């Protein structure tokens, strides 16, 4: 019990540090891919620290409360995952977090943030089936929804769940807000929706969104690790490779439209996700 608690608490403390560092390395590598030198690796921390000092301009009274809840639930989801709790609970909590984020954006009065929120809803709709398939498949492979059980499962899960892994990798692009699926908001300012979801947030609340994103990055990568939990070094390697591929994908694709994002992620969920579950079903013979 205490091990779990320590693990969850250390997630709360260290995840933003790791997430921020990952984001900094990401920006540096991205810059190198674009023929630039790039910012210092610690740049994301400077940004967030600066944002915290800025004035908090508010368009509507309650919008920032939603952001507080968004950050809270993102942290809570991560704690659930790191505490080895139920995978389903983690997914629901994460969805709730996105709902709060979308509500916050809907609260903003700018049309950009409204359209951004609508697109985010569609994206959530797009990736959610795949996430659920992933949870089901983990259950079928290991016989438990509990992360603590999954992580000690002796079999290398990637062998059983290659389709699920690929499908999850596909929606990871959406979750990490990488091109081609950075529809609702993007790291780079040059987008038709300006900053989409985050258009209406300034200063400290923007910093909170950024920090929430760091937390998300860390537990999404932890989720990737779950597939390789039986061989830790392979897991670590997979996390690094996955993230590098995401950066690469970010740099070699144009931004897609939401129709493509939703359709393709459903197709991926149906073919890879459902296909993998079906094969497991036949193998295990439930």
């Amino acid at each position: 019990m205490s091990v779990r608690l320590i693990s969850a608490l250390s997630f709360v403390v260290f995840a933003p540090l790791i997430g921020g560092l990952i984001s900094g390395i990401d920006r540096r590598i991205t810059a190198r891919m674009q023929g630039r030198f790039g910012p210092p690796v610690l740049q994301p921390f400077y940004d967030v620290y600066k944002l915290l000092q800025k004035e908090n301009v508010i368009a509507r009274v309650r919008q920032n409360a939603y952001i507080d809840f968004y950050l809270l639930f993102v942290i809570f989801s991560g704690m659930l995952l790191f505490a080895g709790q139920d995978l389903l609970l983690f997914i629901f909590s994460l969805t709730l977090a996105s709902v709060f984020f979308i509500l916050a954006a809907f609260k903003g009065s700018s049309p950009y943030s409204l359209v951004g929120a609508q697109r985010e809803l569609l994206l959530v709709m797009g990736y959610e089936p795949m996430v659920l398939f992933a949870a089901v498949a983990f259950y079928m492979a290991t016989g438990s929804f509990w992360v603590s059980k999954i992580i000690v499962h002796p079999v290398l899960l990637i062998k059983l769940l290659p389709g699920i892994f690929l499908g999850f990798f596909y929606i990871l692009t959406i979750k990490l807000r990488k091109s081609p699926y950075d529809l609702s908001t993007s790291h780079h300012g040059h987008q038709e929706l300006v900053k989409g979801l985050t258009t209406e947030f300034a200063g400290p609340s923007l910093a909170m969104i950024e920090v929430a994103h760091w937390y998300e990055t860390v537990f999404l990568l932890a989720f990737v690790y779950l597939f390789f939990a039986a061989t830790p070094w392979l897991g670590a390697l997979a996390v690094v490779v996955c993230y590098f591929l995401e950066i690469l994908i970010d740099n070699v694709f144009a931004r897609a439209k939401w129709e493509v994002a939703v359709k393709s992620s459903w197709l991926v969920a149906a073919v890879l996700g459902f296909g993998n579950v079906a094969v497991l079903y036949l193998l295990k013979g439930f």
Partner: protein
Amino acid sequence: MAYFKKSPWIIHYDATSCNGCDIEVLAALTPLYDVERFGIINTGNPKHADIFLVTGAVNEQNKMVVKNIYDQMPEPKAVIAVGICACSGGIFRECYNVLGGPDSVIPVDIYVPGCAARPEAIIDGVVQALGILEKKHLARKEARKQHDRIAAN
């Protein structure tokens, strides 16, 4: 140290410039000049920005736009007038629809001369604005402290 020096985010608005300076502002983002080295990002969103780059003079129709963008930016903020048109009206000073530089509408902190202003000059202007940001931040902090003190008494 409030890290304003490390992470200035800019927003750029083309008042009535001829595009020469705008293109140079954009060129400063690209590989040869790469201002992201200094943490400078072109946000495009006034609510995220610290530094407002105005190119060109102000005219009847866009003076409200310039003012709106300025008002939407959260404190502390700095304004840089890029190019000779933004400093004084430049070659277009005598045109009937030119009201003068953006300083006729909003307070301008730094003037970057040139027609068109070179990317090096623009970067230098931004770097100078950083000191002003830091100063404004400290002044704000001081004012808040004083306010609290008065409130406490």
